[in-house]
């Protein structure tokens, strides 16, 4: 367990971008009609956003950031730190931060860090950037979290294709004398490295021309089991150690894995589904971007003028998980950009 708290940092903006191309799971050719109906009803995913081959996670995150720059009047020099969380970077190296720094025109003295994290990535990124601002004195930082997972799916795999979707997000964090304490509880279990994996393309198993493009494989039942085993105690511990009860929490924003898994978590934690906003139906599972996308889409308008206590919970590849208890709002959540 890594439970810790960071004071004096506020989230100011949560923006997101998705590809314009929307795919309806009822049109999927890799499933028969009845299976499609069952899938949509039980897994809860009807529409997914699929990026064309020339659109990367960095493009989506930059679009969300530029939208914020325009609406909020931010200038490149306003940001002293940049963190990019993705598992579908533009290149194996260098990391996405350098491309983003160049394209946004951020200062050469920007603190930059690329994080290879999946569905728990938003919470890991938030914890890391908040920690950087707190410890360095940098006033404002940009957290970019996004993936184009549809790019690494085997198109014949009916266990992954109907699930995954593409999105990017941009979250602005600032030091603030009035900033409340953010509580984090992060964890990982390396026995689960084979639960979700892209087997080829790294140094261990390079791609050769006979293997084709590397693709993601996922053991759905083991994802369910790891999630139940780790996420529930992780959130209970977060609440206990931060001194809050689940009734103090206005919303639980979970990673949008699938409806079966998410509803199982709600039930075991004793959370009503009204307190757990969902975007599975409209955006599917967008990997590390589900949490900011769900905040923006479901409660963004309310957050423009209100303050809420949120628990955020991400879990997946690794197997890794992380939760955060934060007070959020008023915060700017501009309309989701479509590119």
């Amino acid at each position: 367990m890594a439970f810790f708290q960071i004071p004096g940092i506020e989230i100011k903006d949560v923006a997101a971008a998705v590809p314009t191309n929307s795919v309806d799971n009822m049109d999927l050719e890799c499933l028969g009609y009845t299976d499609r109906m069952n899938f949509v009803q039980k897994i809860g995913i009807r529409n997914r956003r699929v990026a064309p081959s020339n659109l990367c996670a960095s493009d989506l995150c930059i679009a969300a950031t530029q939208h914020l720059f325009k609406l909020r009047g931010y200038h490149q020099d306003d940001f002293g730190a940049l963190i990019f969380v993705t598992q579908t970077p533009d290149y194996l190296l260098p990391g996405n931060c350098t491309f983003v720094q160049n394209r946004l025109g951020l200062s050469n003295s920007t603190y930059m860090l690329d994080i290879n994290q999946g569905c728990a990535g938003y919470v890991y990124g938030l914890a890391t950037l908040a920690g950087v601002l707190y410890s360095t004195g940098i006033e404002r930082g940009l957290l970019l979290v996004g993936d184009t997972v549809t790019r690494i799916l085997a198109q014949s795999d009916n266990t992954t294709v109907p699930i995954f979707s593409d999105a990017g997000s941009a979250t602005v964090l600032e030091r603030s004398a009035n900033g409340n304490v953010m509580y984090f509880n992060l964890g990982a279990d390396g026995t689960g490295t084979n639960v979700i994996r892209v087997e080829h393309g790294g140094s261990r198993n390079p791609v050769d021309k006979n293997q084709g493009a590397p693709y993601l494989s996922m053991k759905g039942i083991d994802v369910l089991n790891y999630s139940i085993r780790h996420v529930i105690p992780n959130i209970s511990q977060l609440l206990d150690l931060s001194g809050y009860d689940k009734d103090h929490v206005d919303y639980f924003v979970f990673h949008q894995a699938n409806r079966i898994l998410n509803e199982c978590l709600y039930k075991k934690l004793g959370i009503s589904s009204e307190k757990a906003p969902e975007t599975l139906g409209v955006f599917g599972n967008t990997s590390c971007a589900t949490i900011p996308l769900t905040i923006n889409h479901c409660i963004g308008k309310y957050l423009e003028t209100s303050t809420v206590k949120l628990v955020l919970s991400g879990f997946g590849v690794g197997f890794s998980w992380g939760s955060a208890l934060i007070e959020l709002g008023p915060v700017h959540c501009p309309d989701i950009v479509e590119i």
Partner: protein
Amino acid sequence: MNSKDITTEAFIEDFKKNFDDPILEDISVSTRFRDLAEWSSLQALVVVTSFEDNYAVTLSGAELENSETIADLYSIVISKIKS
């Protein structure tokens, strides 16, 4: 939960509730669940989740993979409740 509380009949009734297919009336302990028309990776997830909900038992992907019949699933569930 006591494993004695779960008879094979009750287990089969619980198992059937995960399916929409009325043909499941004929299901028995010797039924090979993968032969069921409705069986799929999605249905496997539904069944494993129902074991969590009904019996607080976690069935791993490997355990499911190594099982053939309803009796195999029943044995795993009962042994996990006992332990």
